[in-house]
């Protein structure tokens, strides 16, 4: 029997890109910790996804939707003034904020809705935190003519009103979730409750590399278009691979999308940035890998913010998209085996990065990638001018304007 309680796995694999195993495990992380009612659905989804992966027609269809509907490839942009300001490495932004709906989330929802259609599902459910995944789900559900219900915590509804209205304009029903901390984790609980109740006709589009197997692998596969493009683009522009990749992690889908195609390139340093909220020491943060321990929530084992009795601790971040107490299991494994480094940035640091990026580059970034940018601001000056950084600019900041104004004491 495996030693499940150990938090680290010193075994070095031949490839960092071959996971998960047939049980959906990445080291000790991952798995399928769900109620029996859902198991047949999970297994059906796994079979359908495996079949789709082997079907060239599915890949061709996905590529077409990426190109003409999402607007891919997204540019790889040399943030020249920022690089100059920081005085070190050349910093590139992978511009996934230019996608349709303004974030990387649509890469995954397009993929999953094509799968839902193949499986003949009629009803789409989703959870959302910042509302970006909800909007991306409502968007594809509208386009494919499927009923769509989005679960969203009452607190998130309050701080992301424009996205709530966008979802409604797209014909989705937004169901407020008033249980627990009334944020993303509770929205996911409620979506799972819906799925248990409506198993036959419902497809659950999970928005991150989290949840039971096969979701973490499937969402990663759809999002890894980010890293595949970035790899080609940087070789075109610079003739070589980057020295450093940086991305923000809540559940971890934008980061995994960028990182995965580079995992087996030993020269590429990789840093995932968690939300430190008011500061790790205050306990008010969302940094599961920095300050959590392995636990089981929402269908998988992974690092989790929990108390000594295994109760989930309510996370905090200024960014609703990072306000989640867990992290995708593949990230946890990559941390355990030492392939990725984990850093964190506070609300305050993210806001400073927001201001800097807006003024120097003419880009209002979403508060989520501002956490990654805060880390770039720390690392780039220490690097040589011939070194290259790619940061995933995974969402645009329009949705966060009210939050930023509020923090600046500005009444709009």
């Amino acid at each position, binding site marked *: *029997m*495996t030693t*499940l*309680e150990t938090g680290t796995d010193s075994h070095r694999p031949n490839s960092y890109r071959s996971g998960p195993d047939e*049980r959906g495990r990445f080291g000790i992380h991952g*798995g*399928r*910790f*769900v*109620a*029996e*009612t*859902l*198991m*047949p*659905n999970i297994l059906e989804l796994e079979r359908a996804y495996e079949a789709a992966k082997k079907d060239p027609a599915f890949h061709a269809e996905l590529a077409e939707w990426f190109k003409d509907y999402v607007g891919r490839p997204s540019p790889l942009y040399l943030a020249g003034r920022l690089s100059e300001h920081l005085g070190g490495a050349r910093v590139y932004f992978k511009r996934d904020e230019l996608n349709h709906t303004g974030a990387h989330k649509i890469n995954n929802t397009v993929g999953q809705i094509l799968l839902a259609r193949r499986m003949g599902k009629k009803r789409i459910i989703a959870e959302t935190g910042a509302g970006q995944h909800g909007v991306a789900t409502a968007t594809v559900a509208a386009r494919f003519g499927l009923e769509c219900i989005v679960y969203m915590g009452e607190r998130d509804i309050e701080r992301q009103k424009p996205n709530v209205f966008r979802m409604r304009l797209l014909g989705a029903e937004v169901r407020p979730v008033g*249980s*627990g901390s009334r944020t993303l*984790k*509770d929205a996911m*609980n409620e979506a*799972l*409750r819906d799925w*248990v*109740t*409506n*198993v*036959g006709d419902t497809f659950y589009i999970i928005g991150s590399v989290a949840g039971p197997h096969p979701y973490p692998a499937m969402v990663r596969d759809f999002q890894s278009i980010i890293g595949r493009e970035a790899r080609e683009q940087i070789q075109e522009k610079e003739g070589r691979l980057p020295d450093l990749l940086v991305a923000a992690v809540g559940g971890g889908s934008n980061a995994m999308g960028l990182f995965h195609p580079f995992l087996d390139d030993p020269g590429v340093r990789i840093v995932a940035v968690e939300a430190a909220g008011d500061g790790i020491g205050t306990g008010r943060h969302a940094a599961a890998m920095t300050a959590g*321990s*392995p*636990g*089981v*929530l*929402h*269908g998988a*084992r992974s690092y*989790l913010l*929990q108390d*000594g*009795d*295994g*109760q*989930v601790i309510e996370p905090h971040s200024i960014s609703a998209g990072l306000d989640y107490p867990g992290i995708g299991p593949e990230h946890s494994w990559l941390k355990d085996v030492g392939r990725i480094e984990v850093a964190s940035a506070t609300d305050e640091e993210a806001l400073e990065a927001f201001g800097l990026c807006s003024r120097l580059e003419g880009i209002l970034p979403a508060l989520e990638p501002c956490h990654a940018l805060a880390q770039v601001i720390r690392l780039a000056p220490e690097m040589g001018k011939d070194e290259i950084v790619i940061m995933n600019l995974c969402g645009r900041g329009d949705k966060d304007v009210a939050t930023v104004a509020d923090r600046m004491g500005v009444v709009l």
Partner: protein
Amino acid sequence: MSRIERRFTELRRAGRAGLVTYLCGGDPDADTFDAILRGLPRAGADVIEIGMPFSDPMADGPTIQAGNLRALAAGMTLARVLETVRRFRARDETTPIVLMGYYNPIHRYGRIRFLDDAVAAGVDGLIVVDLPPEEDEELCLPALERGLNFIRLATPTTDDARLPAVLANTSGFVYYVSITGITGAAAPVVQQVDAAVARLKRHTDLPVAVGFGIREPAQAAAIARHADAAVVGSALVEIVAAHAGGSSALIEAVHAKVAELAQAVGGAREA
């Protein structure tokens, strides 16, 4: 033979179905819960399920979610649930106790330490909602090695192809979830449940208990005509919720409801 197996053997001999009650451990507070628990066998509970409180009970409806949160707010922990069982066991040697809940608190406690402590406290069986057979090595197999019953949920979505896998390491009894949904939601359709119980019995000799959505004595009696036991949870937790603060009235009200249900279940096959 475990206490659970002995209890179902007795029920079979007596020609009647059993009543399984669920309450959330430590709801609304530890002392009131102890008093409720102590009186359950006399009120007519044949098997007692105690919920292990969890912050994120994903398969439960609003009633049991609220029960979990009340218990946590009152300071309940997994260790205290085990103490509660130990106190009960000192007075009652025969009524089976099943702990029901989610995996994370057990995972955090340390799964082997938990199993050993549960056996020592006098726990007879476990129901862990988010541990399907695919994850048996986590807790199910070590629990069976220690003589604990591991009771699995079978659901309307568990088809004939999957049923053998679900039943393989199940012991004590099988818990048939009568609806696709969360606890305390829609009422089950009796004819469908009867057919499902018959299907289960083609696959196993284990007793079949039916739960989720059973609220009233008449419903429980209808279920008990074919099933070996009826499980009632949300309807009891609602009584706790209705008596905020905990009181002797609360304790009496729970026991009165259990007595009503027990009478209906016990007499179901005479009608």
